């Protein structure tokens, strides 16, 4: 009897496990319901539809601020998945390549669009674009970043350019100007070259120029690893390596796809970058973008290099002590630029600028696995309406910077919810000048762009720590770049790279 009962128990347990194993798993992050039941007059178009949006941490507030309104309007539900900035590329790549369909919408760097589009991870949005009534308002340089083989794969959310910030109470102080001229032999003004930047940072380091009772620093930049460091470095490298009139000369030799990361221009940029360590706090070598921004607006730094976020954050009275004290300058250039074709430095009488559109701007794409592309499009289009886009770019902490002509009107900023001070004229002018500059440099926009940047990051941090010389570090980075190119396919990478710069295949 006992044995019979035992067998019954075993069979029941086994059946139970079998039933559980065969049951459909429910995935809380992807509870995509069936299509809305058609009714005679549906009250809300996307009732019951759930869209999962993956976004890098910096940009998440710029998405979340619009979720309640869209949900109320459409009946849909948005689940925002915030991914740490440094992990965004790998997380998206893992999700896309596994076919898991974890995310319906991805908001990421424009320079990854070719990568994801070529691999079929994101869908072309050409069929939706006729619905868009504000396309022509987008700056041409931002428009161009979205095309892959003539098709648009994203909606722009943000315009990215890295430029400089300076403290007016430092650089425009007559007493400091006199002392600077005595020491360096030229007028103190926002730096036009990286040498001038170095001099100004040196001059303002170690004494209390803002009269707050504590010694201050000359500059602040994000030198930390696994964050925005490589983009800040490339801002310098562009000045020395992006030869004017030679499109595509910055990252690779466009004829051979040989990595340029170890050329003398890059080496000089890295040496410059290491030299400025002494003009900032010791922790600067660990600072990411968020640390840099939070500390810069808290005061104590004469110069800074960042995207437009610092300018917006400086207006926030809760975080900033420098509202009204901040000025802006185009990322410094150089009178000497390395010519990769001759292997020589060429001298120019005028300063050669190469404004760097680092990161390329946040863009929103719809995953190929998305089951509700219409709803997904509706949401990303919603956060890019002219009105919403302006609201986002003028709100501190959204990581969305101007990218539409309509956003470059200073008076609109002065009357926005965050009342910008008069410096907004210069703020917008510098960005527009950079984005429309004839030698403006796009970020690297070829497949596996994220891997190239990660490889550069790995060796930059070792050079900054003094564990490798700049030459050795960049040589190792260039070798790794060449390896990645070979792995992905030299011919295919070259074709994409050349097409990005309008060069014949």
């Amino acid at each position, binding site marked *: 009897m006992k044995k019979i009962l035992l067998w019954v128990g075993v069979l029941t347990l086994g059946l139970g496990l079998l039933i559980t194993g065969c049951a459909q798993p429910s995935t809380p992050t992807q509870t995509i319901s069936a299509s809305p039941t058609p009714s005679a007059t549906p009250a809300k178009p996307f009732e019951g539809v759930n869209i999962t949006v993956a976004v890098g941490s910096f940009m998440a507030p710029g998405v979340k601020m619009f979720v309640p309104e869209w949900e109320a309007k459409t009946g849909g539900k948005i689940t925002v998945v915030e991914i740490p900035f440094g992990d965004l590329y*790998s997380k998206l790549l893992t999700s896309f390549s596994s076919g898991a369909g974890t995310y319906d919408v991805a908001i990421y760097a424009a320079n990854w669009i070719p990568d994801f589009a070529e691999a079929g991870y994101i869908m072309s949005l050409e069929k939706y674009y006729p619905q868009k009534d504000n396309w022509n308002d987008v700056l041409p340089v931002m428009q161009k970043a979205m095309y892959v083989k003539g098709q648009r794969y994203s909606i722009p959310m943000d315009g990215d350019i890295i430029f400089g910030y300076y403290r007016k109470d430092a650089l425009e102080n007559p007493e400091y100007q006199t002392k600077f001229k005595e020491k360096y032999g030229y007028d103190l003004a926002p730096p036009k070259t990286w040498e001038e930047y170095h001099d100004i940072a040196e001059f303002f380091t170690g004494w209390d120029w803002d009269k707050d009772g504590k010694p201050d620093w000359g500059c602040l930049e994000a030198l930390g*690893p696994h964050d925005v460091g490589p983009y800040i470095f490339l801002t310098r490298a562009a000045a020395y390596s992006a030869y004017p009139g030679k499109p595509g000369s910055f990252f690779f030799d466009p004829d051979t796809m040989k990595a340029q990361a170890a050329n003398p221009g890059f080496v000089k940029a890295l040496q410059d970058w290491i030299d400025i360590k002494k003009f900032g706090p*010791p*922790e600067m*070598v*660990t600072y990411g973008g968020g640390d840099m921004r939070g500390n810069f607006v808290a005061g104590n730094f004469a110069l800074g290099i960042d995207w437009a976020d610092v300018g917006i954050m400086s207006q926030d009275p809760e975080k900033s002590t420098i509202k009204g004290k901040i000025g802006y300058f185009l990322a410094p250039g150089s009178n000497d630029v390395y010519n990769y074709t001759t292997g020589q430095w060429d001298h120019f009488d005028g300063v050669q600028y190469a404004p760097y559109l680092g990161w390329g701007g946040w863009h929103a794409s719809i995953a190929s696995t998305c089951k509700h592309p219409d709803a997904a499009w509706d949401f990303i289009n919603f956060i890019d309406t002219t009105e919403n886009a302006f609201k986002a770019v003028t709100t501190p902490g959204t990581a969305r910077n101007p990218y539409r002509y309509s956003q470059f009107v200073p008076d609109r900023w002065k009357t926005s919810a965050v009342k910008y001070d008069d410096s907004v004229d210069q703020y917008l002018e510098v960005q527009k000048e950079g984005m429309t500059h004839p030698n403006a440099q796009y970020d690297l926009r070829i497949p596996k762009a994220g*891997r190239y940047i990660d490889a550069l990051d*790995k060796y930059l941090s070792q050079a900054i*720590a003094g*564990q490798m010389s700049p030459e050795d570090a960049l040589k190792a980075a260039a070798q790794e770049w060449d390896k990645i190119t070979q792995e992905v396919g030299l011919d295919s990478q070259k074709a994409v790279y050349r097409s990005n710069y309008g060069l014949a295949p």
Partner: protein
Amino acid sequence: MIISKPKKTKIEWTKHLLISPALLFFVALTIFPLLFTLFLSLNFWAVSGEHHWIGLGNYIKLFQDSIFLTSLRNEFIFVIFGVLFEYIFGLLLALVLNQLTRGLRLIRLAVILPFAATPAVVGCIWKMLFDQSYGPIPDLLHKVGLTSPAWLTQPLPALFSIIIVDIWEWTPFMFLIIFAGLKSLPKEPFESAMVDGASSWRIFWDLTFPMLMPTTIVVILLRTIEAFKIFDIVFLTTAGGPGIATISTTLYAYDLGLRTGNLGYAAAMSIILLIIVVLILNVFLKTIEWVRRRSVLQKREEALK
């Protein structure tokens, strides 16, 4: 004489079937991932799914990878210094608290609080504590006239910063287990020793420490295995920097596997680390066993004399 044949043991299928779900679970969650990791390590396997067999290629490349070798060096530094000081402090705390009769519950709670804190919080707090510009530790050192090292921004101080944080977080773990061990020791030998007039040191060295040996072995074993997996503190305080000065093997594997997408290479790293840990633990256990046997033999010889 009749020698009866040994009875054939009946296989009791019902018992096997009843434990089979648990066994399957164990195989699925432990054995299969281990075997798959081993398989991954013998392939070039990208996160995109692209893969091909390369045999020992990843392992050969690993031993030529200076960052991997640096990470192994750092692992040994973290484990040796971390476990050693955690044991010493844990033992001292346990001995001290064992003498207390009042307020024990509250003090014990305070002592184990660091262990109860989330590792992410621990990392962030200590990063702020060590901050040269705003952190209270450098500020305190300046106030007493000392120069504060660059805790997180110079290679050697950064290594020791990680060890300090690790000791702060894991000493309570050591303390808990040693304290439990102390409480379980019989009282009679100690009472006899005190009656005989033995000093505190003699009582500790001749009675407490040897009797705590089984507990010591367990706690050092457990902590060593865990210490080799150090990740969260390094990730949050230094991110392996400055440069690669504090990078751990687990962090490097994470970087290569999940950020760069080279899963095969990261898997090879994990297997190497596993082999190292198993070897070290075997050597440790054999050494303990050898010491124990020698001690028994010595006592027998003394008894015979």
